């Protein structure tokens, strides 16, 4: 048993850090999650692409580059730590999935854009009536000639779909089959005729899209894999996503910011960091941030070594998102009465950013399977408890 990175892995981490310091900026738990500067992100992405980092682990004939699994993990951690945009889901999940199951036309059209970092996917799973119970989705896809006609509605495309994005849409192709057996996946242009996008502003300040499909025609070449096998591909996404669903490398940076704030501010002539309750919370959170890092590293190590994992990703999701909530809660207590101020209030940058994270974190315990669903998975798959 060994928790240490090899010398090569440390060298690679330092290389990524140097790249990020030059091309993006210093580590920051908020940057890149808050205000999006599309121009800046495009420029950055082409530099990332030229390093071969967007096709890590893909087969060689599709432009795949040979980095070790731990290097892939380190890269994603460093991008997250720096708050840099990185299409991890494309690299780890959608790329390999398309290569395996998409039609030749779809592959030749979409993969080059993914390799260049110029393609955004929007997941079209959730509907007004189906959230955690995904398999009961209602959006319909009916055969028509060489293709399908789509009718229905999807919620929570993140970020809200822009022209040129591809919607990874789950729709029902066989309404008479058992619910998991009648779903197919389609790769739909968000600008296709009949697609309407509306925006909803969120608590986190960003926008999510609702998409409406009114007789949207999609050619069969844009169906992923076999008809009615969509549930299998959704499951495969979840399997491939076990490691990429780990965006918590910014915790140590956030924690350091909180400690620095406590060490650098006084109230009633007394330094915050000298308050007994502050001291205890700092000690507790230091330990929990370390535990979160190690949980992620060990799971990556297991997954990449081909070990069977059961509920690990659910454990990490529940633990880490709730730890982020405890971190921001501590920050708000340090800040006191000013905690509700946003960046726009223009009072203090740290306070505004903390406020942003406090709002964004509310989404984290919901997206990717609510933490209650994660606990169900832990109980059923991790502990083998009986279904209710």
């Amino acid at each position: 048993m060994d928790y240490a990175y090899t010398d090569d892995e440390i060298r690679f981490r330092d290389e990524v850090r140097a790249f990020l310091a030059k091309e993006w900026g210093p580590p920051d738990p908020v940057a890149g999650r808050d205000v999006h500067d599309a121009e800046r992100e495009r420029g950055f992405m082409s530099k990332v692409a030229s390093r071969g980092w967007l096709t890590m682990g893909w087969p060689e004939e599709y432009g795949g580059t040979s980095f070790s699994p731990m290097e892939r993990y380190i890269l994603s951690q460093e991008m997250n730590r720096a708050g840099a945009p990185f299409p991890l889901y494309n690299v780890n999940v959608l790329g390999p999935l398309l290569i395996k199951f998409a039609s030749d036309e779809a592959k030749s059209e979409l993969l080059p854009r993914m390799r260049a970092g110029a393609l955004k996917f929007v997941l079209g799973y959730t509907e007004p009536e189906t959230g955690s119970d995904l398999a009961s989705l209602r959006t319909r896809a009916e055969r028509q000639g060489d293709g399908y006609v789509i009718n229905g509605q999807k919620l929570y495309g993140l970020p809200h779909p822009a022209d040129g994005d591809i919607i990874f849409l789950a729709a029902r192709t066989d309404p008479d089959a058992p619910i998991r057996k009648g779903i197919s996946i389609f790769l739909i242009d968000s600008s296709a005729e009949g697609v309407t996008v509306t925006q909803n502003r969120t608590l986190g300040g960003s926008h999510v899209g609702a998409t409406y499909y009114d007789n949207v025609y999609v050619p069969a070449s844009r169906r992923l894999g076999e008809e009615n096998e969509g549930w299998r591909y959704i499951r495969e996404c979840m399997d491939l996503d076990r490691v990429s669903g780990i965006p918590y490398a910014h915790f140590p940076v956030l924690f350091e910011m909180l400690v620095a704030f406590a060490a650098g501010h006084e109230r009633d002539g007394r330094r915050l960091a000298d308050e007994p309750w502050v001291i205890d919370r700092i000690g507790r959170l230091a330990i929990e941030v370390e535990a979160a890092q190690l949980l992620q590293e060990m799971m990556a190590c297991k997954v990449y070594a081909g070990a069977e994992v059961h509920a690990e990703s659910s454990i990490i999701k529940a633990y880490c998102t709730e730890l982020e909530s405890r971190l921001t809660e501590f920050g708000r207590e340090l800040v006191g009465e000013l905690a509700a101020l946003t960046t726009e209030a223009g009072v203090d940058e740290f306070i505004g950013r903390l406020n942003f994270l406090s709002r964004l974190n509310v989404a984290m315990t919901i997206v990717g399977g609510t933490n209650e669903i994660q606990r169900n998975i832990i109980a059923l798959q991790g502990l083998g408890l009986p279904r209710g």
Partner: protein
Amino acid sequence: MDYELNEPQRLLKRAAADFFAREYPLDRMRDFRHDPDTNERELWTAISAMGWNAAPFSEEIGGYPGSFMDAAVLLEEMGRGACASPFVHSAVAAGLALAEVNHPLVKAIAAGDAVTVMAPRTLLSSVQHSADGHLDGTCLAVPWVNLATHYLVPLGSQRYALVDAKAVTPDRLDSAGLDCIGRFELRDARVMDLLDPGDTGTVCGGAAVALVLLDAGSRSLDLAVAYAKDRIQFGKPIGSFQALQHKCADMLIALEAGRNLAYKAATLHGQEGFARLARYAKAYLGEAVPRVTRDAIQVHGGVGFIDDHKVQLCYRLALGLANSYGRPGDIRRDVAEIQIAAAGR
């Protein structure tokens, strides 16, 4: 990075697991309380005969090749087995403190011939070191006074006096924990040696306790899950109810978060970072495992509260050890001070 034990460690783990499953299952551990001194002595004789006491030490002084990591494997199985023995206190805490200062008593500890325990600094202990070098005072909550051959009595912050157990007449105290604990008076007691091992004993003891707690917690969760699958209420196994499922999920989350801290500490023994991780692990599991093992009783409902139920052993183990070798709150304070000082630079 490697998540697996090596082959010798796997074999050692299996041997220890087999020993507890075959010779000392939880039912037998539970019955210790009817005649604790005899049962504890028998178990300790068996453990010593297997040579486990040498595990934590380096090979030069007769230890195992994997040293602390090998001991970690044994500590985990002792936790799973709710094992009541001086191993944590003698072979690991006092033993490694003595090894730190190259004391010859280590060989006897490794061979199982000596049992040395550190007397803790407690709320009610007080020891005076007289001008002529003798000790007077009271030591409380001293582990394993029934088997100890030597004591390390704390003087000041990091110095210890080595005292022959024959110099005192200890009383065993009634304890809800699994470890035997007692009290003794020092009256003009002779000091065999004065030692300054720094905080080695406390840090190593903390790392060891973390590992024992980890698997005691894990065993309690196994018992809770097995019970929840079997126990039928309202026509269904209670484990199918989400309230219990989520309680069990929370127990697993807490244990998995602590597991890496304890394992990483074990892999770092003798290297930079060991003390830090050992303290983190102790503080985290010292707080989490009493809660987890209590929740395991909660899952059992009323039957778990009856003294004959083995799920209690895990909670009792945690009650006894959670505050040994560093109270979680003290450790959090020390950790915070380091973080705050670093931020101020």
